[in-house]
């Protein structure tokens, strides 16, 4: 009999194919693997008994992946020849897999509690023989790993800081309760030692918790849980959380769990009490920790990573404008070079852009760019030129004189990017908001906000359109005058932006018959925006993102 395992896998990496190949090889199964776009089909030929046993093996040995969307199994008549092979020429350099976890956790195994067990799937750590533990003047070399982990967990529990070398670098770990928050620290990093209790500290959805445990072992940002926040241990609104990505941290976490410790905070530098080191490890080969965002549709967006095919970096560097560079990589990654695609690049760090690509175009067509005003005074002058703008401004000045005064002090030269985020900052200033529109919207409990005007200046052209930012500001002012609160207006700004994207897509589609919409830039990793954008355009268009390449580069 031939079984076909169907995997929808939204990555171009070879991880799944490698695992399938190694699992089948280890079970001595006859198999073939084919790949077509996002679909990996794994065919296995065996008698019923062997097939049943193999089904159990694959269930226990194949790790979950953030890129794996759907799986299905069916009986088929034929086994097509493979069109993709496992890459056996290089070390996979992955976090621990289920197989090495079985070895390290089984008391009968010779590798019981050995964090440096060797597995053909994961990091090659066979040359590492012992820990070097330094505590005060005492330096101890030991391979009694279980004792070391028990001892270190106990000392962390007592409140000591431990500097640990891991396969991803050296970090100082301590109990979350001991965290000394530095106001200049951009993000607070946490290691969750017990995913069952993650919700005690952060607000995490089931798909996000599953993602933390996936083979990629990503780092992800979470909102702090209000109950935990009220304990005043942490002031930050967002926390960057990951799960152990090597056996060193995994085995330590096991001991910490037994002591009731569900989280450790960690940092790269600072004081510590104990140092744990090991030799024979090339730091250049260190395990990279990707930063991800899991969207509502369970789609993983890569925010930070080095785990992409380096040929895409050449594509990226071949284009000057970041938005086009991202768009081009996205087209390559999704094999869309023969299609008609409209890309929205919305960023907190670069100029925004909407551009259209089609094979027969020699380059891209800019559909929309943004132009920022030079001063708030200019904004007010432009509002006065609008129909009923003078009356609106007069009423607003009467009701909110302080907001007008503060806004006029806002030096717009600090806004470096012609982007929607910059316009939101102008709106925040004029509307006297205490928090950013994005933060406000993420905290809103409503599903719908007021309709904020996102309009373009009238033009018969389909390209190089200009955004009429005055309407954007005016409508926010009107809703504030009507008594709508800051958070709800902010939700309106976010929701209406999604409608704006949808309207542009519809307009371009009328002329160009689009085959898809692509979204790039970090703003599309925002939960609320992503939710509304998918709601607005998901029905009519297929939406594409970068696969393994970051949604926005930091360089």
């Amino acid at each position, binding site marked *: 009999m031939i079984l076909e395992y169907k995997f929808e896998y939204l990555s171009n990496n070879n991880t799944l194919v490698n695992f399938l190949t190694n699992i089948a090889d280890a079970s001595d199964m006859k198999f073939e693997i084919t790949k077509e776009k996002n679909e990996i089909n794994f065919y296995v030929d065996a008698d019923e008994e062997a097939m049943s046993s193999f089904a159990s093996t694959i269930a226990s040995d194949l790790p979950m992946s953030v890129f794996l969307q759907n799986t299905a199994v069916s009986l088929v008549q034929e086994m097509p020849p493979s069109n993709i092979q496992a890459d056996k020429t290089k070390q996979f350099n992955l976090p621990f897999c289920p197989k090495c976890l079985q070895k390290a956790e089984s008391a009968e195994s010779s590798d019981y509690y050995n964090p440096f067990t060797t597995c053909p799937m994961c990091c090659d750590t066979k040359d590492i023989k012992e820990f070097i533990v330094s505590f005060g003047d005492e330096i101890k070399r030991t391979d009694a790993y279980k004792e070391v982990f028990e001892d270190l967990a106990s000392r962390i529990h007592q409140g000591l800081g431990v500097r640990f070398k891991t396969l991803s670098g050296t970090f100082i770990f301590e109990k979350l309760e001991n965290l000394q928050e530095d106001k200049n620290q951009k993000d607070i990093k946490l290691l969750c030692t017990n995913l069952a209790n993650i919700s005690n500290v952060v607000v995490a959805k089931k798909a996000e918790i599953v993602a933390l445990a996936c083979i990629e072992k990503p780092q992800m940002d979470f909102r702090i849980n209000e109950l935990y926040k009220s304990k005043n241990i942490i002031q930050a609104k967002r926390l960057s959380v990951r799960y152990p990505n090597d056996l060193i941290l995994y085995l330590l976490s096991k001991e910490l769990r037994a002591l009731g410790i569900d989280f450790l905070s960690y940092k790269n530098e600072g004081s510590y009490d104990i140092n744990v080191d090991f030799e024979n490890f090339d730091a250049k080969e260190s395990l990279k920790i990707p930063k991800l965002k899991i969207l509502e549709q369970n789609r993983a967006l890569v925010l930070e990573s080095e785990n992409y095919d380096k040929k895409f970096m050449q594509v990226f560097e071949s284009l000057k404008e970041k938005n086009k560079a991202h768009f081009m990589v996205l087209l390559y990654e999704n094999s869309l070079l023969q299609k008609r695609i409209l890309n929205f690049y919305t960023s907190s760090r670069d100029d925004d852009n909407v551009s259209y690509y089609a094979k027969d175009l020699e380059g891209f067509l800019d559909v929309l760019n943004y132009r920022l005003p030079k001063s708030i005074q200019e904004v007010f002058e432009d509002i006065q030129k609008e129909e009923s703008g003078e009356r609106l401004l007069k009423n607003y000045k009467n009701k909110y004189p302080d907001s007008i005064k503060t806004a006029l002090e806002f030096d717009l030269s600090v806004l470096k990017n012609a982007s929607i985020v910059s316009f939101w900052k102008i709106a925040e200033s004029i509307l006297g908001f205490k928090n950013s529109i994005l933060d406000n919207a993420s905290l809103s409990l409503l*599903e719908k*906000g*007021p*309709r904020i005007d996102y309009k373009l200046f009238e033009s018969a052209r389909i390209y190089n359109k200009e955004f009429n930012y005055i309407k954007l500001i005016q409508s926010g002012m*009107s*809703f504030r005058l009507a008594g*709508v609160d800051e958070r709800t207006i902010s939700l309106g700004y976010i929701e209406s932006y999604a409608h704006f994207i949808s*309207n542009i897509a*519809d307009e371009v589609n009328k002329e160009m018959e689009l085959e898809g919409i692509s979204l790039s830039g970090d703003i599309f990793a925002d939960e609320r925006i992503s939710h509304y954008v998918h709601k607005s355009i998901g029905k009519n268009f297929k939406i594409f993102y970068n696969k393994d390449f970051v949604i926005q580069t930091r360089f």
Partner: protein
Amino acid sequence: MNILILGIGNILFQDEGIGAHFVHYMDEKYEYISQKNSVTIVDGGTLAQRLIPLIVRYDYLIVVDCIEAYDSEPGDVYFFDFENAPDEINWQGSAHEVEMLQTLNMIRMNGDLPPSRVLGVIPKRIDDDTAFELSEEIIAAADTMEQTVIKHLESLDVSLRERNPQITISAMAQISFKREIVNDSGI
């Protein structure tokens, strides 16, 4: 038959938002039951031409909006066939009303306009602060508008069952900007 009840209006200008407020009110107050037909309610706001792709998907249209008419008083309600508008209707109200007329005409020129009825009401136009308050005249008119719609839908084999009888048009005007429509067939 798929029936669309489309509310139009700028909710930031008191009575000029009655079309939008009224359809939210009817959406909150009733559910719509019919063996043959479906009823979808949409708050079209001031979207005008952007509503074209929506309107053409339906078999029957009821537009609720402010109108202007000669020899009329605020609160007067008109219900008429768009193709045979009474002579006194002059469509010269606010910007959104003009845009809506243009939109319906554009669809008609393309031959895509479904049979369309207009439920129009004369607003009390005041130059004041932005607010969601409605005039007494419009509040009183909402009763007539409600009965008109019920009667017309019944003639189309659609019966209405009360879901939230307590809701009032004034209360709805305060929250319609953040309210999601319930009666949405998703066509």
